[in-house]
């Protein structure tokens, strides 16, 4: 059990440029571990539940850090801290949903050290998996959460495939709502992946949460100007008001013209292994006024297809209500 609170030995590398980091990743492959802010990594190590041979600390790579304006929006280096995102005038001014999402991650201390890249790439919080048990996600051949007596209040409504864990990320919902593009560098060069395709469920790969291969590195998140200045909504419902993961959260971006919704993105975390686009609700909202009537109609469809587990059917009304609030734009 995870009582140890003492890290095992590993080789620590502190590269100062991306190329060097990629060389190390290529050399160590799946025996390597990328540390961004370290807020999750060190827990894994102290619990001895993850035992990489080589730990690659990305903190010294200046190119991974900072917020830059581009021809079409902004580009955020993945080692930019969550606090920097919250405090960035351009993000809070034009892409406020990301600032709001970042502001609700964990606690102030964790946001000061935790990074956007780390938050987007974070692993599942299923407590069985985190206990170091030999579940599917840990390479074993069972799921402890999805049993007749499994304690699965925090687990998924959608997309179960042997594993029923959810994405715990607050910023993931926001980057999907903003149609962000994820810039990934690897041995074969650079590839750019839409945010919605960046996150993967257990049916695609049960041992990781994103498309990033062990030899690759997420270097930047590009946010297009399409949604700049849109009507944004973010709300996170968690047991506690700080230092907690969402039971469900919602991030939305909406463009309203002449009193009618022209385009909208609504995304929930905490309900599936990936941030879930609520496309049915989006389609109902488009072409209608963002009023209570539209909200009720669209929100009521948000949970369509949900297959709740023993302890999580409360997420159905909760996500429906959050989608309603996103369309109404008020709590």
């Amino acid at each position, binding site marked *: *059990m*995870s*009582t*140890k*609170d*003492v*890290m*095992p*030995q590993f080789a620590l590398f502190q590269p100062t440029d991306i190329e060097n980091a990629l060389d190390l990743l290529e050399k160590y492959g799946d025996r390597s571990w990328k540390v961004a802010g370290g807020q999750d990594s060190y827990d894994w190590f102290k619990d*001895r539940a993850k035992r990489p041979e080589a730990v690659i600390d990305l903190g010294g790579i200046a190119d991974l850090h900072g917020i830059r304006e581009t021809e079409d929006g902004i580009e955020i280096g993945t080692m930019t801290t969550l606090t920097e995102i919250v405090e960035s005038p351009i993000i809070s001014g034009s892409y406020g949903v990301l600032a709001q999402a970042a502001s609700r991650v964990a*606690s102030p201390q964790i946001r000061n050290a935790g990074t956007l890249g780390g938050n987007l790439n974070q692993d599942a919080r299923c*407590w*069985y998996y985190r*206990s170091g048990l030999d579940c599917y996600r840990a390479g074993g051949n069972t799921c*402890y959460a999805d*049993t*007749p*007596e*499994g*304690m699965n*209040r925090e687990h998924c409504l959608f997309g179960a495939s042997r594993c029923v864990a959810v994405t715990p990320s607050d910023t993931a919902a926001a980057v999907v709502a903003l149609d962000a593009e994820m810039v990934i560098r690897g041995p074969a060069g650079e590839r750019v992946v839409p945010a919605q395709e960046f996150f993967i469920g257990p049916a695609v790969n049960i041992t990781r949460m994103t498309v990033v291969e062990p030899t690759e590195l997420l270097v930047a998140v590009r946010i297009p100007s399409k949604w700049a200045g849109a009507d944004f909504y973010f*709300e996170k*419902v968690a*047991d*506690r*008001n*700080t*230092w*907690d993961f969402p*039971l469900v959260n919602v991030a939305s971006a909406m463009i309203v013209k002449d009193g009618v919704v022209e385009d909208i993105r609504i995304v929930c975390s905490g309900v599936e292994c990936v941030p879930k686009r609520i496309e049915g609700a989006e389609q109902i909202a488009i072409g209608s006024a963002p009023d209570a009537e539209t909200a009720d109609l669209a929100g009521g469809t948000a949970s369509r297809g949900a297959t709740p587990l*023993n*302890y*999580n*059917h*409360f997420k*159905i*009304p*909760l996500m429906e*209500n*959050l989608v*309603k*609030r996103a369309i109404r734009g*008020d*709590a």
Partner: protein
Amino acid sequence: MAFKHIGKNFTPPDVRAKVTGKAKYSEDFRAEGMLFIKLLASPMPHAIVRKLDTSEALKMDGVIDVMTADDVPNIPEPQMPILTNHPKYVGDPILAIAATSEQIAADALEKIIIEYEPRPFVIDPLVSLFPGGPDVHDSGNVALFRGKAESYKWTARDFAAASDDELPRGKPQGEWEHGDVDAGFANAALVLDETFVVAGHPHQSMEPRSAFAYWENGKCYLHASSQSHTFNVPDYAKYCGIETEDLILIAEFCGGGFGSKGTAYPIATIPAHMSKKVGRPCMMRISRAEEYYLGSRRNGFQGNVKLGFSEEGRLVAADLYVVQQSGSNDSFPDYANAGEALSLVYTPEAMRWKGIPIATNTPPTGAQRGPGQNQLACVMEPLMDKAAKTLGIDRLAIRDLNAPKNDTVFGGRRSTLSSTYLREAMQSGADRFNWEEKKNESGQRNGSKVIGIGVGQAFHPGGSSGFDGLVRIAPDGKVHIHTGVGNLGTYSYASTSRISAEVLGCSWENCVIERGDTRRHLPWNLGQFGSNTSYTMSRTNYAGAMDAKMKLLEIAAMDLGGAAEDYDVGDDKVFSKADPSKSLTFAQAAQRAIELGGKFSGEEMNEDMHAITKASVTAMAGTGLIGAAKDNHPSKGLPPALAASFMKIELDVETGKYEILEYVGMADCGTVVHPQGLEHQIRGGGVMGIGMAGLERIVYDPQNGLPANIGFHQNKPPSYLDVPLEMDVGYVDKPDPTNPVGARGIGEPLMGCAAAALLSAISDALGGVYFNRTPIVPDMIINALADRPQSYKTLQVSNQ
């Protein structure tokens, strides 16, 4: 009575060290050649260790030794063992490894080969009570506090008689009854019959119970995280296998205990045993997860309460049955305390109590702030609301009608009280809260938000007697106040030490508190638990200081003429009442005491004191004027600690989340000794109550016996953002007649009243949904609002 120190704020002497980080807790000590210990924790909820191979671990560089249950004194079940070959919960320590670094010790743990024989395990007490159900202990499933275990099984008929939503009720372990309960129900205008569950959450001490030990010249030096001091020395000595006088306990600071460090606990002696074995100092740092395993938790309740009310709201009959989830050790009597608390706080005209504590394969349990009384407050207060609303009575009025008065008798033994002003606390709190206006806001809607108004009250016994006070006036005139009570963090060790200064009429600046280390010659005192310190230690220090005062008066009479009663003390002097210019300074008097010897300087002493106090007096004999006496002040009735609170919340009907907008906490604790300390207690207890009622989750996988909550982020004690920024506090401040300064204790009910007020407010905001379950977490509220079934079964435990 005008006091010089009592009722005044002051800065306790250890505050500066705490806020500057200089305070040294057990984990902060270092010694030459020190080794580090790591524990091997059971991965199974119940098993027997069949084979153990430590050879590979012992071959590793830096690994010094391994210790198992076979190497330490056997503490017979159902008490907590030091180490065990019969693990009874996931996390139960089986062996200890000592190595030159913590990392080597942790690496070595992975080289241990261990084979377990799994045993049937039980998380739910009712499963153990069912015919053929598993017993945690070899000798049974009912383990009384400090007693032996025996097996209780109810009949299948007992279970068949109850529906899935009702508590089955077979033979209890304990019961009492007074009055005609059945006639009370027959004549009642309203009868509530409710099944309830209260979770047994962990103590959540910020400082895990790390311990450090070494030996010198046959004596064991033990640094343990402890709420109490001298009270724990005999037990720690016993666990170490040595005589009391051979144990040096160092416990100057305690990073929170909330009951879990009130008495000695066996695992703290693991470094002492290892140190003896290997001949080097040993540090055992306890991780946060380990603290959740072996750091103790509250007893959980499954129960049923039947309440009969008259039309006016008077509680005419009550019938309480509590099944206690006691974990893997002997049971603290929460289940019995709950019965007593119901009887005292609501004074039913007739009452029946039954209860049974059942051992489960979950971590050891122990007293936690309001053990039984606070669970009872969580059960009863929302039901008092339900009764009031059903009968059309004001919720405050129904509490006032049933509240205890000075002549109340309570419990199975029909005990009496020393004094009680709960009604005054309720009324005064209602005035501060503006109850008459606020109650009309109940149910008001603003968009998706709805207002809930809550009220709560709680009780715990608030004091004890018969312990020893000890002061020494040194030849330099300094007053050394020796206190063995401990320092659990409330500063009551310091505020009650000021009683000595009050009695001796000396300035606080002239006083030195001697504490925190057995070598400082501490007296026999009760521990810091049970809300007792303000009452017990004010009596105790009064006794010790009065003894010193009498000796000062006698010396003055001897040297300056006249009789002792012609003299008084003040301004660090003993002086003639008739002619204050005739005086001796404390320094002069202390020097005279040394010259006089005998009783004046501790060479003779009262025989009725405890051996530990006598040893301390003897050690200091001849070094000053010694005041040492047992507290023989008369007692009459139980001194109660009582508290009331009021809360206003705004609950969002779309998310199930709420914000606590206002909080008023009120204390009835007799004369207030230290207002600032009391105010912090009211607020701190309030925060803890909010955690108990609304946040702190206990989840066990019933199939595998695995705990889900082994970190702060999983267990979820309240954060700053979950509690109100401002918490208003007040107190009755009426003296108790049985305490020389009028003080009573208070710590524990301050949590229960807040927990109850939050449950009351949530139910109020929901328009009268009573969950009969604590904690109430957001998913329960969301399901209630969406009119969906709850995910748990009525009597299910360890799932919220």
